[in-house]
């Protein structure tokens, strides 16, 4: 069985829409129980999450908790929720077998709050596993194509 770019893109756009619309509970449900959601250090996209200091290193429990936290008023950085939009492009399928597909893409994310718009330029390596008519995410590794988190200062949203 061969996965097509169109069906992959449909899934990525669906995920992006859940994030942009702050449907964080539906977003976390897209992941497998052995999933990881990572932002490695900018200097080394292939760094080992068990030894290096990452920006995000979530297992399934922590990404679920991230989703829960972002729905609370006490997640102050995101109350009220900022306005978020993901732009996804340059989608490439780089490997696949019958059940899994590795997809790489670029994404630009805009976050607007209190009249300041921050831009996050990223490239993403995502490993998807077939799940009925759709997919689940086994690994999402977001690389910041920026040498620092300045002037954004934080990643309080889901990239």
């Amino acid at each position, binding site marked *: 069985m061969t996965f097509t770019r169109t069906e992959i893109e449909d899934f990525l756009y669906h995920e992006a829409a859940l994030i942009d619309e702050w449907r964080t509970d539906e977003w976390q449900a897209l992941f497998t129980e052995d999933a990881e959601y990572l932002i490695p250090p900018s*200097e080394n996209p292939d760094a080992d999450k068990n030894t290096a*200091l990452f920006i995000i290193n979530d297992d399934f*429990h922590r990404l679920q908790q991230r989703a829960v936290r972002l729905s609370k008023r006490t997640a102050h950085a995101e109350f009220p929720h900022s306005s978020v939009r993901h732009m996804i492009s340059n989608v490439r399928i780089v490997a696949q077998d019958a059940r899994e597909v590795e997809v790489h893409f670029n994404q630009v994310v805009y976050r607007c709050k209190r009249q300041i718009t921050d831009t996050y330029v990223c490239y993403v390596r995502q490993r998807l596993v077939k799940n009925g008519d759709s997919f689940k995410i086994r690994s999402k590794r977001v690389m910041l194509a920026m*040498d*620092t988190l*300045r002037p954004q200062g*934080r*990643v309080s949203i889901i990239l």
Partner: protein
Amino acid sequence: MPIPLPLGPDGFIRDDRKKHEFLVPRRAFTSPEVLAAERERIFGKCWLYAAHASELSAPNHFVSRRVGGRELVISRDDNGELRAFYNTCSHRGAMVCRQKAGKSKFFVCPYHGWTFNSAGAMTQQPAESGFPAGFFSDGAKDLTQVPRMDTYRDFIFVNYDAHASELVEYLAGATEFLDIVADQSAVGMEITEGNHEYSMRTNWKLLLENSADGYHAMTTHASYFDYLQSTNGSFRTDFNPSDIGGTCVDLGNGHAAIEYVAPWGRPVAQWVPQWGEDGRVAVAQLMADLVTRHGAQRAERIAEKNRNILIFPNLVINDIMALTVRTFQPVSEGYLEVNAWSLAPREEHPNVRKYRQYNFLEFLGPAGFATPDDVEMLELCQQGYQNLPEPMWNDISKGMSKAVNGSDDELQMRTFWRRWNKLMQA
């Protein structure tokens, strides 16, 4: 340049020890003239943290970074000596080093090719004609060394004032706390791979206040504590949240620290069930080693207490669920840059290192469950100051009437501001 702050009997602050009221003028956070004076009187006079010796573990290793607003190269020269020089060519001023870190015997200015060795000495320039014999031979065209550099327990500091007092004298009582950090390893501490470089749209002093503020934890970080409670085994099993207690101490020269019971796991060395049986064994071994090296009482203090350490003016070492070395500097009166590193024993067990990094980014990182909320609070403060010249004063009085301050009082901030006040009037 006059400092546009209301001068009273206590200087720029109001330090009323009868009424137990301590006030700081909000204009100190919003005025470009105040920042210009701080650059001269504070960043130009105080010892500033620049790097950790572990980042320069062999000859010709270097790092380049901004320290107190100036662009520096810190290197270990061919003979193994630490050097600090300004990252600017002696010819026309271009930066000679464009990498954050690396290993090189030479720094070659990309503009005209002037070449300097890892001690900052000029070794070569490509033109043969146009200069008299001996023009370069007296060291006059070497890179300019930072006037003072010194280390304490592998923490490298620089000072732009040639006449500054010795580092150890400057650090005063803070050496006791730096010792506790350095003593967590038998062979030496190291900066681990990956650092956090971020920013805040706030005045730099707001982050100093925030970095050892026990009072804000239960409100600003309510969602972090919710998370810990929903995560099996991440709290000490016998932990009672109303029993953090602790103390705050003035360490002299504007430095201060709070020290209190750690409710969470500490890589050196307090195990929590989340770390599993492997983690328990590794941490028990760490504790036994600490007792051997330091005796039971000091070992217990190192292992089980949290410490948030403020070293005037802009170094924070938080020895909590991980160990952060955090420094920050103003870019403008309303914008700061942060550099934060994770410090760990070089010999650390892989299982413990894993939880250290996991803990660090969870609480201390710019995408964690706490720091983004701190950034939000500080930016709300900075924006709130737009109301000047109305509400003019911040209140930092908590604990002022008490003989001993706890970790959720505000002595640590008063200690900073009293020193700031003194230096700004010098």
